[in-house]
């Protein structure tokens, strides 16, 4: 499933909107999610899951090809925790 499939469903479920407008509104939803996460704020979608930005500390890793030690800089990463509802739907 891609964004285009989602646009199609929004178009079907919402009368009175053109395909182009449907695509714009879907784009707006994802852009809003991205802007929120970019600010470090978490997103909670009941029935789906939570998106959380986590701060990772600096650590020493290893290049698996050469075995060389490398320093991995502190960074922020995004994690997704699926809701129980989604987990159950996937795992009937």
């Amino acid at each position, binding site marked *: 499933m891609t964004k285009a499939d989602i646009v199609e469903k929004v178009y079907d479920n919402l009368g009175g909107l053109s395909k182009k407008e449907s695509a714009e509104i879907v784009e707006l939803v994802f852009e*809003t999610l991205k802007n929120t996460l970019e600010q470090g704020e978490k997103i909670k979608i009941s029935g789906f899951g939570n998106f959380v930005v986590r701060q990772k500390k600096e650590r020493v890793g290893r290049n698996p090809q050469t075995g060389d030690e490398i320093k991995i800089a502190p960074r922020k990463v995004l994690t997704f925790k699926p809701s129980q509802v989604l987990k159950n739907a996937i795992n009937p």
Partner: protein
Amino acid sequence: MTKGELIDIIAQREGFNLKKAEIVVNTIFDAMGEALARGERVEIRGFGSFEVREYEAYRGRNPKTGEEVYVRAKRAPFFKTGKELRERVDLS
């Protein structure tokens, strides 16, 4: 940000009423959840991709009591952050 707050933002930005904004947001997350329940991969360019991963059964331990527990084979959703969002989250 909760799903309700996301719906409010979409309602304001598009000059939509709340009901329509709610349909849009619910359609998006329902569509993604249903695709995952079918075992389908979901790819939203710039945001990330979701896929269903299979986990084998294993013997684990309750970390509180030390008691041995049997964990059944399961399927679980896995999210990989897209390149654009990964960079935006880290730079924030």
